[in-house]
């Protein structure tokens, strides 16, 4: 109930660190972080209680005139996700952000609280104005956070690109709100649900809403800001942006789809599904080509948001086909995957931050063998990587499995061949995505943590301070807990859609999906128990038989192997780059630097550039078009005042003549 308002107040108190005296910067930082931990904890607790014990009333219900704060079950799911991520990442930031001492750390802590505040405000706003204002604060604060290391040129350009893109999205969302609000009694969400918008304008409203929210969640082709903004921001900010802010876009889109626009139009769902699938595959393909750890994770966010939106679109399609009892699994899949992606991407951005903290670089080509220097971080990163590859015993597979089941259900219901072809497309895309994601994270983990050090930056690497480990560890524990016992989460999430149909998928045995004559089961708990037993048996067998281990350097045809002989990350993804070169269009340059001798010991330089498909084919032409148009106006807009006065006079004369003639 009022916990939510109290937490908003605590966030607000946390922002005072901005005006804290500079002498006690560190105290300001700790104060800010403690505020955000407490407030986020309250948010998570009240949302969880609301979801576990549904009472039929609102979670929050407050009015000030026409402004209102309201939260239902759909909001609560995202509040839960925000609260959990807020607590964990703030704990991590207690140690991590200390690296910004002397670099506006007070501002960082204050904005951090404001960022969380605005996210919670978006999730609990009950009318269009509150929503837009909170949404705008969220965009501006995240812009400031991305721009925190403003000394770097790359950071500034990434931040401004983000700023421009997110405002295009906000504009689209405002149009959508306006279209719906103008056809209903007021701009409160309750009234907007009863709008009488129909036909063409409804389609326009849908497309505007989808454009706006897809942009914020980084779906292709609107993703271009994301791989630039995430690496530029401080790591804990990237973790929150990727883990939570992208999901807030899903929240908004769901609000529109469920409440305002409805899901009766068949092709609405199809568009969401297809864009989601394309984003999923292309996102992970670009991720596999990157060598910057945070860019890999950013592109992987595009992939996962793609999977989430494709599941959501699948649900919309099923709903439009009047299969109300079945569509629940697809929406549940989207929500479960959203929660699990929030956990695993939060975790991996934190590990990327830890690796940066340890080595001072984000480039995995310079790393190697970090598992020996920072074993705990390596363990947590391994769990996160497994989850992002959707392997068993992690939350990743739970979401992935539910997504696959919803598409299978769609396939079984698809009578006409066109829809069946679409389902085939979906499965090809999901298959490609799954396998490429595995390759992507094997490549990232293998290059950064395994093998030998590729440069001397690894020498000074060390294990992380305790709060950072606690933060990462909590996420890892949650990922495994959900992965092994998914029934609690699945049950919470499916009852949010009990308005469509009541289903019960989570059982003590695991997830059982039995909709419309279809039957499928996934019981990770039992599989986990069997694996643990088998593992114990194997270890015992290996030890009992008297294992004889000898340490010796790898045979390298008589020479001593150097660390340069390892496979590089760029080399690792070479076959995939060849296989999909039509999409990736890689540009390679091989330069021979013949310094010492023509043949022996010569030096080579290899440059590889993979341009973003949409940047070249979509954004550059648009940009060029805009510049051309502007330069056309340049001719009339000379800048001298007398000419402008002349324009005004001509305009007046035209108006006068017009008035006389008519």
């Amino acid at each position: 109930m009022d916990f939510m308002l109290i937490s908003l107040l605590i966030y607000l108190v946390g922002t005072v660190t901005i005006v804290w005296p500079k002498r006690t910067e560190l105290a300001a930082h700790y104060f800010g972080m403690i505020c955000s931990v407490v407030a986020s904890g309250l948010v998570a607790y009240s949302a969880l209680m609301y979801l576990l014990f549904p009472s039929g009333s609102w979670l929050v219900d407050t009015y000030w005139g026409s402004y209102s704060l309201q939260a239902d079950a759909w909001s609560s799911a995202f509040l839960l996700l925000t609260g959990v991520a807020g607590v964990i990442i703030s704990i991590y930031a207690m140690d991590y952000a200390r690296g910004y001492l002397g670099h506006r750390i007070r501002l960082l802590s204050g904005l951090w609280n404001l960022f969380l505040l605005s996210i919670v405000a978006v999730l609990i706003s009950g009318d269009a104005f509150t929503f837009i204002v909170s949404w705008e604060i969220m965009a501006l604060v995240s812009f400031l956070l991305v721009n925190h290391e403003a000394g770097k040129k790359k950071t500034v350009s990434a931040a401004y690109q983000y700023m421009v893109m997110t405002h295009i999205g906000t504009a689209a969302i405002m149009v959508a709100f306006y279209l719906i609000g103008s056809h209903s009694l007021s701009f409160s969400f309750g009234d907007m649900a009863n709008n009488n918008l129909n036909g063409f304008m409804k389609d326009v409203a849908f497309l505007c809403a989808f454009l706006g929210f897809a942009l914020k969640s980084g779906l292709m082709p609107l993703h271009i800001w994301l791989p630039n903004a995430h690496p530029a921001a401080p790591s804990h900010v990237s973790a929150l942006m990727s883990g939570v802010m992208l999901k807030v876009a899903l929240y908004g889109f769901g609000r529109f789809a469920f409440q305002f626009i409805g899901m009766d139009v068949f092709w609405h769902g199809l568009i969401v599904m297809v864009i989601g699938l394309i984003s999923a595959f292309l996102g992970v393909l670009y991720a596999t080509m990157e060598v910057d750890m945070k860019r890999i994770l950013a592109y992987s966010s595009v992939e996962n948001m793609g999977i989430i939106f494709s599941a959501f679109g699948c649900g919309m399609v099923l709903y439009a086909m009047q299969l109300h009892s079945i569509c629940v699994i697809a929406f549940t899949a989207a929500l479960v995957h959203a929660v699990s992606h929030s956990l695993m991407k939060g975790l991996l951005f934190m590990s990327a931050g830890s690796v940066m903290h340890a080595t001072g670089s984000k480039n995995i080509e310079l790393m190697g063998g970090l598992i020996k220097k920072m074993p705990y971080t390596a363990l947590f990163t391994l769990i996160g990587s497994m989850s992002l590859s959707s392997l068993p015993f992690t939350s990743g597979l739970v979401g992935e499995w539910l997504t696959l089941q919803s598409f299978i259900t769609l396939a079984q219901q698809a009578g006409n061949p066109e829809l069946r072809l679409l389902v085939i497309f979906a499965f090809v895309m999901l298959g490609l995505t799954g396998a490429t994601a595995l390759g992507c994270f094997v490549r990232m983990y293998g290059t950064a943590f395994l093998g030998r050090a590729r440069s001397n930056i690894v020498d000074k690497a060390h294990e992380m301070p305790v709060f950072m480990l606690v933060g990462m560890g909590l996420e890892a524990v949650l990922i495994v807990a959900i992965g092994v016992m998914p029934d609690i989460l699945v049950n919470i999430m499916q009852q949010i859609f009990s308005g469509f149909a009541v289903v019960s998928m989570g059982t003590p045995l695991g997830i059982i999906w039995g909709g419309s004559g279809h039957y499928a089961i996934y019981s990770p708990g039992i599989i986990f128990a069997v694996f643990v037993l088998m593992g114990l048996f194997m270890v015992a067998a290996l030890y009992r038989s008297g294992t004889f281990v000898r340490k010796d350097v790898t045979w390298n045809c008589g020479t001593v192997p150097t660390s340069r002989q390892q496979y590089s990350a760029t080399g690792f993804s070479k076959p995939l780059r060849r296989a999909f070169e039509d999409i990736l269009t890689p540009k390679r340059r091989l330069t021979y630097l013949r310094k010492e001798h023509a043949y022996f010991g010569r030096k080579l330089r290899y440059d590889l550039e993979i341009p973003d498909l949409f940047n070249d084919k979509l954004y550059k032409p648009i940009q060029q078009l805009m510049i051309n148009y502007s330069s056309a106006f340049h001719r009339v807009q000379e800048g001298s005042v007398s000419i402008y006065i002349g324009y005004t006079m001509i305009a007046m004369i035209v108006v006068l003549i017009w008035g006389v003639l008519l």
Partner: protein
Amino acid sequence: METLMTSLGLNLVQGLLLLVFAPLVAGIINKTKAFLQKRKGASIFQEYFDICKWWKKATVLTPYTSVIFVLAPVVYFMTSLFAATMVPGFLTGQFSVGDAFVFVYILALGRFFMTLSSMDAATSFGGMGGSREVYISVLVEPAIMLAILINSIRYHSTTLSSMVIDYDGAYFTISAVLACIAFFLVMLAENSRLPVDNPDTHLELTMIHEGMTLEYSGKLLSLIHLGSFLKIIVFLTMFGALYVPINIPLAVKILLGAIIIGIVETLNNKMRLFKVRVYLGAALVLLLLAIIAE
């Protein structure tokens, strides 16, 4: 609860049964190849001897390796064994702990650790093998997804035991035949057989799976080989039960499948790495046609 325990027990027995026969199937494939190449060849029990031999030998580890290197073969073997308990065939009960997608992702867990271990020994061969393994698995995965899709559309379930061919209905259809051919192609790629990978050579240009496991020795190597043999028999069982539309006993199907793999491996060369794309594209198109014909 009792039926649950019984089915779980039956599944485990089946897994152990397949484990016992796995090296034999590999031996049969090798014997077929030897016969066709007019060689006498090794005994069909040779793989048992090899595994025992490696188990007795010492394990040499490079100092660069981490715990992942030791963990990977253990996980790989366990995932193969678990897949053997899941696959429908001889003793699977009514209850299963996972469906076809879980089966795919359990195998993916093994692949994840094997490819990781390939980068752990800090050599070029390992990374090369891992990189190629990832490349091939990316191409294989969509085909496997479509193969699952066909049977799940037909039998309204993704549980492996429900996806077994139903001989009471019409089973010898165009769709079934196309799916059968396509799954055979996929099976060869997934199990690193010719024409995609050559399990016999250690030439750096050709090896994929062997490249990944080059640094292994002793007990760990014997686990990897046992895991690979298991994977072959698991895929043959799945192929026979789910995709071969001929009503003969499953054991016969497995035997025939092994012999056909031997014949195919004798008749074909290893293809260029980037031709695999076309090869698996063909499998994908066959599956697409099969789904449309369904």
